[in-house]
């Protein structure tokens, strides 16, 4: 009797867990975050039609996600077509870190974007790097979504 009641409770908890996990996973795909990397298009601008200007990073990370690499391949293709254009890669961090470390982190993020563009044939002479650390957020919010938009490397036309 008691045992069956316990089992029933356990079962209910398991079901609840499954439902909650399902919700969470669903939120992940329909929302604007994957892990904590921004996947939305809120602040994104375009260098040309279909060529987004920025890539996003996970907290404390400088590795490029699959989506980021796709964006950078588009940028590389566009840069190859427009060989007279030079770019500045502006690296940024969110506000949840110390200022000086964030300056270094922004520089590292912009450089991982630069390295990727270079592997797709863009000369390093055409790319300069500028870190703003946490100094220029696009979203002034103090929440995970806002922070995810601010962890970015933005490709800006230099001429």
């Amino acid at each position, binding site marked *: 009797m008691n045992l069956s009641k316990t089992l029933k409770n356990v079962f209910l908890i398991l079901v609840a867990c499954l439902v909650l996990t399902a919700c969470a996973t669903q939120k992940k795909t329909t929302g604007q975050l994957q892990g904590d990397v921004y996947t939305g298009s809120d602040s994104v601008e375009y260098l040309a039609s279909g060529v987004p200007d920025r890539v996003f990073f996970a907290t404390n990370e400088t590795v490029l996600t699959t989506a980021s690499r796709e964006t950078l391949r588009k940028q590389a293709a566009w840069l190859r077509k427009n060989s007279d254009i030079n770019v500045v890669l502006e690296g940024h961090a969110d506000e949840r870190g*110390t*200022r*000086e*470390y964030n*300056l270094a982190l922004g*520089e590292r993020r*912009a*450089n991982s974007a630069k390295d990727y563009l270079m592997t797709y044939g863009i000369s390093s002479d055409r790319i300069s790097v500028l*870190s703003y650390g946490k100094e*220029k957020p696009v979203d002034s919010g103090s929440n995970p979504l806002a922070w995810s938009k601010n962890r970015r490397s933005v490709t800006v036309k230099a001429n």
Partner: protein
Amino acid sequence: MQEKCWKDKMLFRYLFILLVLLPIKAFALIEVDITRGNLNPLPVAVSPLAIDKNSKNNFNKILNIKNLGSEISIIVENNLKQSGLFNPLNKDAFLQESEIANLKPRFEDWNLIKAQALVTGKVTFIDEKLRVEFRLWDVLAGKEMMALAFTTVPSNWRRVGHIITDKVYERLTGEKGYFDTRIIYISEEGPKTNRIKKLAIMDQDGFNNKFLTLGNELVLTPRFSPTNQMVTYLSYFKNLPRVYLLDIETGKQEVVGDFPGMTFAPRFSPDGKKIIMSFAKDGNSDIYTMDLENRIVERISNHPSIDTSPSYSPDGKYITFNSDRSGYQQIYIMNSNGKNVKRISFGNGLYGTPVWSPRGDLIAFTKLHKGKFYIGVMRIDGTGERLLTENFYQEAPSWSPNGRVLIFYRETKTNTKGEGFSAKLWSIDLTGYNEKMVETETDASDPSWSSLLSN
């Protein structure tokens, strides 16, 4: 203006002749323990400094201050109160005339209002100068503890108040004071997504605020030289983030070194002769120094991780810095030549902005753990970690020159609409007591404390 300022300063230096009027006779009976949190601040009476009619009129003419004697005593009172170690008593309760009290206090009167220490003094206008004398009395023992006099230019009157406080503080606590000092910081205005930042400087008590840049370019992390009126900071002039050197007396500025990339996180060596900083290239930040005399640049750290926020030990033999070579931000120390690197932070969370205490025994830091930011201290071997304050966001502690107080900045969380952002300077005692906001005209961040201006 600049020249005058400089002349004033030189004059002040030459005229800063301490005349000990009477040797210290009394054995110190009152003593303030500053090593523990002080929940019972010492009751002290700061009598308005006596002033004769002629001096009063002259100072009023020059400085537009009706009663310079009482204004200076207010500075002293305010300083003592802000330290958290003293409780300056209300002047309304004072029974004795300031002129007479300075000659010979009636100790029963001061005892009656529970004052344990008494500061008296006198200001006089002599030969276009401001002459100050002051005395510190032990009320319970009925004895004089200290008597000093000095002369300066009248425009230095606020510093006179700070110098008196330093002397009183030193006599009662046994430690040097930190009141005749200045704070260099970043003034901030405008929305969070488009902040205007200017280099600014003010006296330790918030007075004499001055902006040193116009806000045309982003400026960050100014730091005082420990030996002179130089400041090093990061400027985005022409969108090239580089470490600059600024002489705040002449206004002369120059880039530090010729680096093909971002230089940041600058600080002076304890002798003021070198600048230590990070240089970022190809995604890697390492630590470099530049000798300000011969311009020789030296690479100190060489590691594919981020190495930043370097700070020398007061003897110049060691450097503490921030590195993520373990995978996350942690605090390290090494010899000043870059050898013998040792990690010292091993607690939970991330550690940044290590700063060596001017006393040499502690390193202050910022810690991020479970979404909260802490200002804390640890011994130089990493033991004895003590967190002084917790908040949503705060970082970048800077030590008072006596190593007793830390100043840092704190930012507020914005609401759901992204509004309500602010950045303010805060200070806290090494004990973890006496946490308070430091008033500034605008929002403020990245404070750096100067050395004592007069020693």
